[in-house]
């Protein structure tokens, strides 16, 4: 199988197919469709590697990022989104949202 991430982050490869998603709507849908156990495993693997991953991404021009580095950046965006489920709500959806829903309809890439 071809690696999706830079070789320096091969340890995160098991999570790449699931969490390297280009847009927030895809990441949000993945969070809501995931179990807390799945997200905890991703968080536990990815969070300790986040600082190294950010430093790695910062070696490249943000407007001309190689595809594997862009995927690493997408994974870090997924970690940001998953962190609220893990650190704050202890469930995929924020607590007590009633009938409210919010969709992101515009965002910069990357």
């Amino acid at each position, binding site marked *: 199988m071809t690696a999706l991430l830079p070789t320096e982050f091969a340890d995160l490869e098991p999570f790449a197919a699931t969490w390297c998603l280009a847009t*927030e709507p895809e990441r949000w849908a993945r969070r809501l469709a995931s179990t807390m156990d799945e997200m905890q495993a991703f968080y536990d693997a990815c*969070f300790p590697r*986040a*600082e190294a991953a*950010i430093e790695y*991404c*910062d070696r*490249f021009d*943000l407007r001309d*990022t190689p595809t594997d580095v862009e995927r690493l*950046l997408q994974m*870090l*965006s997924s*970690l*940001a*989104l998953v*962190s*609220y489920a893990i*650190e*704050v*709500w202890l469930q995929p*959806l*924020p*607590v*007590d*949202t*009633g*009938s*409210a*829903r*919010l969709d*992101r309809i515009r*965002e*910069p890439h*990357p």
Partner: protein
Amino acid sequence: MSTSGSHKHTFPAEHLYPSEVQYRSGNTGPWDAPAIDRELAGANPGAVPRWGIDNFQIFPNLQILLYERNWYLSYRFWPTSHNTHVFEADLWFVPATTARERLAHEYAAVTVKEYALQDAGTLDGTQLGLESRAFADFPLNDQEILVRHFHKTVADWVNEHERSIAGLQR
């Protein structure tokens, strides 16, 4: 309306979520304010010491939240019926030039959604309460002066409209 807000970037780590520390960002935006080449004319009109946030409410449906960390939020509210509405939030940043900056923006945008969903979740109860007609009064204290002004202005418009209709019928 000017407030001191929370200067989250000065909080000790034990009072923050681990990811706030990692991404250096959160509900008051990215911690590392970008350099901008001018004074923010009109910021902190309330001359609040240790200023954090301005909330400009522009009748009828635009709100601008200006943060001390050199970014701002805009909200727009579009009524779609007497008891539903569409809420739009935009985050406005100096464009990121590095992955770290981009991720700080992302974490701020993620945070806005988490908080907005919670805040909006209370509207169901508020609306049901209002529709129950159980309350003759809805007290709004001085901290809610922007909400109070909004409802006063709406009432003025409705009253003016009703007067003009009555005038036509005479």
